[in-house]
């Protein structure tokens, strides 16, 4: 395409347009077919990107994006005058808890699945382990409510043991554990797939050679299997670190209530509440923008560290 274009431009602009016109006429339908998709990307992906300017405005829907007053960094200053550290601390604690607890879980499970030699048993367990991934977060939270609620199975059981009512759904101390627990239940099985895929690429000759050298199973696991998926682990960790400020909001909105407000308010929940519930569009957009900037810095930073450790990383 480019070479044809260059030749055409060399011999004059008119010829280029002529060539372009005949190319388009030749495959007119292809160009027509593309229109809905291109319009979609421009409207629903690119317009919102430019819509970020409202973070620097006092956006009022009536005046529109172009007509609203420019306020510069006002909303950013406003945010740092509020009790922003509460949101940041809640976000970071929840994020690090989930990195420490949910990140290694699929790796360990994948290594264990990889050691299972009965294909039937492996297939059966995988079929069971993947189920929760397809269940919506509303159902996951609903199941949590009916099992951990005061009249639920575990709710009643805990009350019998401790003698007092254990408020699994309201107690701020238990909130993060419930969130992390839900995520482990929902995604650990599914998370194994990517590591199992990496494990199928391990050269079997390595295992044979190790056995001839007298390595036992634990040694083979440690010296062959684990190094084989090292780069996948690093890649996933880089990606995870990039989203350290993303706690997600769909799950937290469902699990949040008046009693656990002190811990359930993360940056994502804050953006949702101030922006969509309270219509403070510019303020919420500013906080969202701040979050994205930190995320980019985190990806670049962790990727650098990955390079220093001799890994390929993300790019």
């Amino acid at each position: 395409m480019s070479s044809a274009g260059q030749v055409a431009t060399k011999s004059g602009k008119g010829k280029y347009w002529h060539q372009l016109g005949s190319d388009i006429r030749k495959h007119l339908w292809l160009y027509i077919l593309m229109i809905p998709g291109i319009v979609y990307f421009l409207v629903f992906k690119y317009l919102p990107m430019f819509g970020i300017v409202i973070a620097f405005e006092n956006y009022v829907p009536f005046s529109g994006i172009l007509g609203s007053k420019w306020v510069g960094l006002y909303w950013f200053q406003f945010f740092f005058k509020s009790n922003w550290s509460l949101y940041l601390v809640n976000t970071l604690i929840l994020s690090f808890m989930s990195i420490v607890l949910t990140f290694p879980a699929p790796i360990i499970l994948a290594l264990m699945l990889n050691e299972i030699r009965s294909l039937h048993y492996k297939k059966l367990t995988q079929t069971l382990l993947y189920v929760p991934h397809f269940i919506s977060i509303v159902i996951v939270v609903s199941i949590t409510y009916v099992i951990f609620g005061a009249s639920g199975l575990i709710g009643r059981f805990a009350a019998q043991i401790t003698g007092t009512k254990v408020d699994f759904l309201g107690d701020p101390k238990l909130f993060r554990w419930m969130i992390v627990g839900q995520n482990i239940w929902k995604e650990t099985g599914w998370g194994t797939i990517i590591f199992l895929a990496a494990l199928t690429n391990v050269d079997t000759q390595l295992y044979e050679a190790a056995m001839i050298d007298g390595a036992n199973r634990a040694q083979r696991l440690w010296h062959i299997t684990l190094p084989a998926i090292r780069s996948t682990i690093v890649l996933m960790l880089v990606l995870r670190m990039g989203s350290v400020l993303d706690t997600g909001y769909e799950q937290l909105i469902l699990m949040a209530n008046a009693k656990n407000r002190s811990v359930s308010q993360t940056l994502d929940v804050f953006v949702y509440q101030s922006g969509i519930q309270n219509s403070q569009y510019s303020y919420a957009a500013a906080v969202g923008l701040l979050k994205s900037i930190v995320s980019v810095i985190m990806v670049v930073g962790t990727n650098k560290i990955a390079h220093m450790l001799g890994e390929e990383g993300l790019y």
Partner: protein
Amino acid sequence: MAEDKKKRHETATVNGKKIAVHEGAVGVYNSRGSIMFDVINYLIVGLASITTVLPLIYVIGASFATEFELQTRPMFIIPHDVTLDAYKFIFASNKLIRSFGNSVFITVCGTLINLFFTVTMAYPISKKYLRFRNPILTMVIISMFFSGGMIPGYILVASILKLRGTYWAIILPGAISAYNMMIVKNFFQGIPQELEESAYLDGCNDLTTLVRIVLPLSLPVLATFGLFYAVGHWNSYFSAMIYLTDSKMYPLQLLLRSIIVQAEASAGDMSLMDPNFVEPPAQSVKMAVIVVATVPIMCVYPFLQKYFVKGVMVGALKG
């Protein structure tokens, strides 16, 4: 020493008993430590898988139980007195049936729109000779890494396009998944060019080639991505929650939220004095609603497992 091991290795293979071959490792697995390792490993993995499905099985069993049994018996899978009371109750009002219908409507229409947009865009950009192909590809790829975020997207849909209160607000913003579209594009690129050329010779244009030659060849791919999109629509609640204004239009996930999550949350904290406070429904009724919302997913689960695992694998190997 090494020689010795190698010999044992070979004889074991001949016997066919002491050597086990599985994907990834060939080895002697009959030592005491190895057997212990296996036993513990099988147990833990088995336990993990049972724990994973246990809550679901419990909910199914409990939905058929009487309220009395739920409050008195500890853990059980099969209730003593099997009753359909909970299901009779939820199907007595048309609320659940209507929500179910709404969810089906959103899922079917949404998926058809997804497939239409995905195919019409993927097919042209699968053609290398297409003018402006590279800028368009760049545009798609950039959108995979950067987004305007929640608020600008909300303003676009609610204030600029004024789609609040319609199903368009739920369906249109996610009409194309760039990631899925790229995979479909790669599939189209893999279709032999000769097939399309012979279609041109037979007098087909690009559109008729797509409809008569390419799409019939891509039915498995379209089914896979249709399933991807459909599960997403069925499971989503957030955009319905922020864009829909009339509770009669609510999809099932949102109804579930209001009768289980909101009821419980407000029951636990009466200080909210929610004017819409509803008495939380009995346990078995909640269980039954959860079951109804999960059944469609479980019906397609065998296909989901098959195709989704493949999808992740493709992504993993490419990335």
